[in-house]
């Protein structure tokens, strides 16, 4: 009996041994911030692995790639967790081979030596990168090198509820002309407050729902600084961040006015529940608001807003007034290769990213999550071109700006954000908030920021 078993074992070993040595499987782990609509941040890489394995077969290579979908970071703490988790994991020799980060992670992780400059591993002159929207390259660059490949693009539009606009005297033609008026600077943030007040005074929405901004902290709020006169954030020549006191004051003043002068925004708005927020803006409980291109997916699916284009107007964020300009924030996520990858893994990761950036594959994410594409060719892929939202919203990208890639951005952003919350709640007047931010920035960040 025992002998028989032994013989079987030997036979089995002989049979399977050649199979085991034939193909070397290399596992590539991916981390991404992804909710249910954003699964294609992972799936695109898994699909790319199928193609890559076929390519490797043709090349006569024994290597095969297996993609492991690692942690997806969701929820309000998701971003901070992703960044903390990645920094600590890679320092400890663990973590993913490919991470989908924000473009602003490039300087921090690049400086710490946690990621490879992608230009060393991917031919950026070759397809599909030869066709990438040119405006995306600077956003992927830091310190003179290109570090990442855009995973998506987006913009963060300004929205208004059309029925309410009509109720305060806008005709259909006026509404249709509004995005252009915003872009040319005829319709400003001042008009936003006035219209919000009219909507509220007519009893169309509850008090504090006239202008209904994003529920929690986010890069979106920098838009209200960027639309002001002098609202620059970065000096490319010196590589330093800029804080413009005038623009900062106008930015704080706008939210302070919205709460105290016009009463169209709630004093305790920030930190509210996102589910409640989405539901309210998608059902006409708010007058004017701002969000992101991906909100479209949420409004039309989970919140059941069927006739989005009839009900909702979208445009750039209106200018802050004379000297300012209408704009919108684009915050492309980016595929980065981490130093967890060694030798052949780096090259395989680079090839996976290249294939996942193919127009058809990237379009899956664009449509599923209502983000924007990354290449010109994508706008001609039927699934993309036929989708009214992506087709129309891609136009906003031309007037978009991005957050600066600077190692000091996080610290700078934290202070400016705290200033906003203080001016918003009325703890400090806008001027006091500006003074506090400036003083604290000078004390703790020294000459890393140009304050003017």
């Amino acid at each position, binding site marked *: 009996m025992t002998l028989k078993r032994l013989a079987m074992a030997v036979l089995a070993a002989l049979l399977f041994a050649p199979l085991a040595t034939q193909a070397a499987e290399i596992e590539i782990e991916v981390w991404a911030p992804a909710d249910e609509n954003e699964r294609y941040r992972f799936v695109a890489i898994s699909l790319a692995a199928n193609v890559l394995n076929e390519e490797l077969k043709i090349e006569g290579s024994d290597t095969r790639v297996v993609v492991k979908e690692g942690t997806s970071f969701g929820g309000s703490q998701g971003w901070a967790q992703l*960044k903390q988790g990645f920094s600590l994991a890679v320092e400890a020799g663990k973590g993913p081979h490919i991470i989908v980060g924000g473009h602003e992670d490039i300087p*921090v992780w690049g400086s710490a030596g946690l990621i490879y400059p992608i230009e060393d591993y991917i031919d950026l002159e070759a397809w599909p990168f030869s066709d990438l929207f040119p405006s995306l390259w600077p956003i992927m660059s830091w310190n003179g090198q290109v570090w990442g490949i855009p995973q998506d693009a987006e913009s963060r539009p300004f929205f208004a509820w059309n029925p309410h606009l009509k109720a305060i005297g806008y005709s259909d033609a006026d509404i249709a002309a509004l995005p252009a008026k915003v872009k040319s600077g005829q319709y400003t943030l001042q008009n936003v407050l006035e219209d919000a007040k009219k909507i509220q005074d007519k009893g169309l929405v509850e008090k504090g729902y006239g202008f209904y901004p994003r529920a929690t902290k986010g890069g979106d709020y920098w838009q209200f600084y960027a639309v002001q006169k002098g609202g620059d954030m970065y000096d490319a020549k010196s590589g330093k961040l800029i804080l413009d006191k005038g623009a900062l004051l106008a930015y704080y003043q706008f939210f302070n006015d919205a709460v105290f002068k016009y009463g169209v925004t709630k004093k305790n708005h920030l930190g509210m529940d996102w589910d409640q927020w989405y539901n309210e803006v998608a059902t006409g409980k708010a007058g004017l608001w701002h969000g992101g291109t991906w909100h479209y997916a949420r409004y039309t699916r989970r919140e059941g807003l069927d006739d989005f284009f009839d009900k909702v107007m979208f445009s750039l964020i209106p200018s802050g007034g004379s000297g300012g300009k209408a704009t919108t924030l684009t915050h492309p996520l980016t595929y980065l290769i981490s130093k967890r990858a060694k030798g052949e893994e780096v090259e395989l990761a680079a090839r996976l990213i290249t294939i996942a950036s193919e127009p058809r594959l990237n379009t899956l994410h664009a449509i599923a999550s209502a983000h924007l594409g990354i290449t010109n060719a994508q706008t001609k892929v039927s699934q993309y071109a036929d989708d009214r939202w992506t087709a129309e919203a891609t136009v906003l990208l031309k007037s978009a700006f991005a957050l600066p890639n600077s190692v000091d951005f996080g610290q700078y952003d934290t202070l400016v954000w705290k200033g906003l919350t203080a001016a918003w709640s009325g703890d400090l007047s806008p001027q006091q908030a500006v003074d506090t931010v400036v003083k604290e920035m000078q004390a703790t960040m020294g000459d890393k920021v140009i304050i003017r």
Partner: protein
Amino acid sequence: MRGIRRFLPALFMLPASLSVTLFFVIPVFMTFVFSFTTMSSDTGILGSRYIVSEATIRTLKDGDLDAALVRQLDSRVFAVNEAGLAALRKSNLKPTVVKEIEEKLSGKVYASEKQLFAALKGLSNRPRSFKDRKMVSKAVVQTLKNREFTTPKEFRAGLASIGIEVTDDVFDVLLEVANTSWKWTTGNYSELMASDFTWKILANTAFYVVLTLFFNVGLALVLALVTFYMPSGQSKFFRAVWLIPRVSPSVIYIMLWRWLSFDGGFMSYILGFFGVQPENWLNEFPWTFVIMANGFVGASMGMIIFASAVVAIPADVLHAAEVDGAYPWQQVRRIILPLMAWPILFITTYQTLSLMTSFEYILLLTDGGPGFFTTEVWALNAYHTALSNYYGNLRYGFGATLAVVLVAVGIAMSLIYLRLFDFKKLVAEPQIEN
């Protein structure tokens, strides 16, 4: 036998001393060391790196180094020379490819990688893949830019490879600027002193600790005494109910508080009947919620200790008091409380120290907001600084500085408590038995 006996006390102490060393002394010492570094998520933790990047060049241009040297450091040319060709011969490029490069491109110099690649694409036996072209580029590039060196020696060799020889003084300057890893500094402590928010956060911490302490020690005492005077069955039930905050997972416990306080929540709903507008009550009264959420958790712990301490008081003492006509309040004030000094000291000390370092309920509830550090306490600030930033800028060194201050205050507080409650007298031999 006698020998063993002499070492027995030390042996008994060994596990405790080991854990104190491992989990207190060493971490505190390391935190102290880290507090004198610029360590952050952009310097990395391990290893040193020297890189001449665009930022390095910018810094050098602002300094007083020789302009020609800086230009040389900034230069990046691709020269197909003998050294480069030798490297290519050793690589796994096909010999025919290397041979054609040698024949047609030898001696040529290109100003950019793009130009080099264009020249390579003109060859018949050309490197076909991007990887191979990169290999050629790496072999012939004459530059220091964006190359990574891990030791000063390597960095010096790198300088020599592009023909730069410098004096030790200049080398030290270059090394300092090119070093992207963390450095020693006392700047964290001066930054702490310079920030206005240091005092605000310190005051917040004191406010939070004192108020929560009063709330939870007071409530614990009340609960222990009230349940003491209740029939046994009822008292057990009430104590069990008061334990719920302690045993529920913090995230769920805080979710209930949030659900209670947000504009669509329970409080707004109830107040709606009285014509009060729905509000995000948490933002309106952040401290009240922070103190209550923490206080209820702490109270249950104190309640258990106090309840058992009350029961431990000899019943005849209380009976005698009752015979003498003492009301329950008088019994509490004159007999129970004095006899409970020891557990009260223990709970107060324990709660002070744990409140000072605990932050998870505040993190989940208000995250230190709203506004400028409104409910940010010291421990939470250390966490935010070192481990949680929306844009990933984690400042380990500065966070360690904050932690060091916390340890110092903690030790000072323990000493003060021991003095205040006259620890020696409390652990003295009971006089009644002498």
